[in-house]
């Protein structure tokens, strides 16, 4: 009975939604005021009847028994569906009467039966509830309700609107009937599952034929430092497809906005880049900010070879010998190399001292300060300013030099120990020899007296 109320509501809204697919805002805002007043009561009733609702559903009873897996799967999958755990059932989306005992009765269009939506209708179908702020608030107060609207800004949404039925809709990513919460590790849109979900379409050259985009992004992504962080280090905050492309509004970031995308996480680098002379130059040449050097899907761990003026350095793809950038690139690289060389030297001598049995854990620890400087310097190169890089390389070199000194001191101490040992051994052996002589002397005297 109470469910009937909700059904009525959906039924009443459905034609409006169908009529105004493009702009769902209007009907949502247009919910009759009287109805809005009834909502709290409705919700309470809804919550109270949740258990009862699950007891009786002729939809599930019949569909579970059907032989055709296409017809029985929804009933079975729905067991794990988040909507079911929130007290919803088949008819809350599909309409109809779950209390009816016959197929005809259950699927009576007069009782709001909608049936299976066409691909083109799916966003609106889900949007019936998901775009309704006042309704969604009852289930999850912080859940966003702009997915449908955002969807139509995405390439997927635009293609769908243009009649391209291959375009992904809600259920392509979220699955259907077995829809799980996004923080459920089994969900198809759980961070570690996203890339695979996207690749179901984007990884298939057949499926993507004629759409003018490549299908090797997932393969490339899997080689990236981001994938390593996500899959190997199990860092769920590491970016997967949607973190750069958006999810509901999925689209390739434009050239101008790449830095904003990467800067979400790599804020320091993005900030430094904005202050660098590269900013204006890249804008002028319409080069993607981060991706020009780092690439996009197959972003590898950057190394020091990327900067500088030698073979393999990226700087020389634009800069030519003699120009200001060429000089700066060479300087930054040589500063970094200098610190690395100094660190290697200090590490080497400290390791040597350690192998020789000297206790150098303290200077070894302090050497971390220089590693710190190196890490920092590698970030600061995004400013393209040699002065900025020098600011951390200088102290880093000092710390490293101190580590080297400590290593030399430890080895000197070891020499001192050996020299001291040699000196005392001379005394000791000399003394032992003398005692022996004394013994001989005494014994020879004893022999003469006997």
């Amino acid at each position, binding site marked *: 009975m109470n469910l009937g109320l909700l059904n009525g509501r959906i039924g009443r809204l459905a034609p409006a939604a169908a009529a105004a697919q493009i702009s769902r805002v209007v009907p949502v805002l247009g919910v009759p005021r009287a109805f809005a007043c009834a909502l709290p009561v409705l919700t309470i009733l809804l919550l109270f009847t949740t258990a009862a609702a699950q007891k009786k559903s002729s939809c599930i009873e019949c569909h579970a028994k059907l032989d055709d897996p296409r017809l029985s799967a929804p009933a079975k999958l729905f067991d794990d569906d988040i909507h079911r755990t929130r007290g919803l059932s088949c008819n809350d989306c599909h309409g109809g009467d779950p209390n009816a005992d016959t197929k005809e009765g259950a699927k009576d269009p007069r009782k709001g039966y909608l049936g299976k939506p066409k691909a083109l209708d799916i966003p609106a179908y889900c949007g019936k509830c998901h775009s309704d702020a006042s309704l969604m608030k009852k289930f999850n107060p912080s859940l966003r309700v702009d997915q449908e609207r955002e969807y139509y800004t995405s390439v997927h949404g635009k293609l769908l609107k243009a009649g391209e039925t291959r375009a992904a809709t809600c259920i392509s990513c979220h699955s259907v009937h077995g829809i799980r919460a996004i923080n459920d590790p089994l969900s198809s849109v759980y961070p570690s599952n996203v890339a695979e979900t996207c690749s179901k379409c984007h990884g298939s050259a057949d499926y993507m034929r004629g759409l003018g985009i490549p299908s090797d992004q997932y393969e490339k992504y899997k080689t990236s430092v981001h994938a390593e962080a996500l899959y190997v280090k199990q860092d769920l905050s590491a970016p997967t497809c949607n973190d750069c492309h958006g999810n509901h509004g999925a689209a390739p970031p434009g050239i101008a906005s790449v830095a904003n995308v990467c800067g979400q996480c790599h804020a320091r680098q993005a900030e430094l880049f904005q202050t660098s002379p590269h900013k204006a130059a890249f804008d002028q040449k319409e080069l993607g900010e981060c991706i020009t050097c780092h690439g996009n899907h197959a972003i590898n761990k950057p190394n020091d070879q990327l900067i500088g003026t030698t073979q393999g350095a990226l700087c020389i793809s634009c800069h030519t010998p003699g120009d200001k950038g060429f000089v700066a690139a060479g300087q930054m690289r040589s500063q970094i190399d200098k610190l690395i060389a100094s660190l290697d030297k200090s590490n080497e001598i400290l390791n040597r001292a350690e192998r020789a049995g000297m206790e150098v854990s303290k200077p070894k620890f302090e050497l971390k300060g220089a590693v710190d400087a190196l890490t920092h310097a590698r970030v600061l190169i995004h400013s393209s300013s040699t002065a900025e890089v020098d600011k951390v390389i200088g102290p880093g070199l000092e710390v490293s030099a101190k580590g080297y000194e400590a290593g030399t001191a430890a080895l000197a101490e070891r020499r001192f120990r050996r020299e001291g040992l040699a000196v005392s*051994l001379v005394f000791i052996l000399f003394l032992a020899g003398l005692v022996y002589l004394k013994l001989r002397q005494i014994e020879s005297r004893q022999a003469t007296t006997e």
Partner: protein
Amino acid sequence: MRIQSLIAWFDERLSISTLVAIARKKEVPLHRHSIWYYFGGMTLFLFTVQVVTGILLLLYYRPSSESAFESVQFIITEVKFGWLIRSIHSWSANLMIATLFIHMFSVFFLRAYYPPREITWVSGVFLLFIVICFGFSGYLLPWNKLAFFATKVGTEIAGVVPVVGRPILRFLRGGDDVTGATLTRFFGFHVAVLPATATVFIAIHVLMVQMHGMSVPPKLLGQPVKKMKFVPNFILRDLIGWILAIGVLAALAALFPWELGEKADAFASAPAGIKPEWYFLFMFQTLKWLPAKILGMDGEVLGIMAFNIVALLLFIVPFVDRSDNRRRRLIFNLLGVLALLFIVVMTIVGYVT
């Protein structure tokens, strides 16, 4: 003369002249096995080194799980010659155990425990176990990873013994687990209980040696045996050995400083291939090789019981083997050689694997 009158004053009260007379009268038999006489004195000398370096280490060492490791690190990095003192303490401990084993086996094979020297032998066996306890307790004190797990395994082995095992384990660990409480306990054993006990047994042992004199091997009895004066001839030879031992210790400490390793962490997983100190290795290896079940009993338990029984048998050796007899001599020589072979082979196997 004033000095002479001072000596006379002391002599009257301490009867130094009697002691001097005894010392000068004391003689050491001279024969082809005389070399073994030096090992007892060498062990005692190394023990003295342990006492001196041990007391020095006490100036800086702190017996708690929070600061034991740090204090040892402090000793070897910040304290002048701390590395030397600490390394000598560790090296001398190991050399002492080695000389003690040599001393024991030489006494065994030369039958130096024949009446009336039973008490000397028994006190010596007590000293052997005391020294091993010294080693076991001292090993934990730097509170590093290896020591922590070696202690864990070592006490675990004690806990396997039926009936008494569990209470012994709890007593040793000061609880169910190796913790700071264990460290405090081991420290107490190492610097108070064991030194006091050792002192008593050393006194008995040395006094007995003085009372009975050096034993002449039974097979040489009946032949004329040359004698060497204890003072100065033997003691000067001893002295040469001790001076050289100082040199060896200094060289070992300077060339091969004893490692400190990483601080113990109760939550870290045990490092792979963990092994006890070399003098426990043969027992460790034996227990590893024993099958899980022997005649329906737990192999490890049987092994541990066997070692305990052998340890007890060591005490009664002089009461079983009391006089020279061809057949018994053969049996005991064989037993000794077998034991020695067993220890050597198992130690080598333990090292290699």
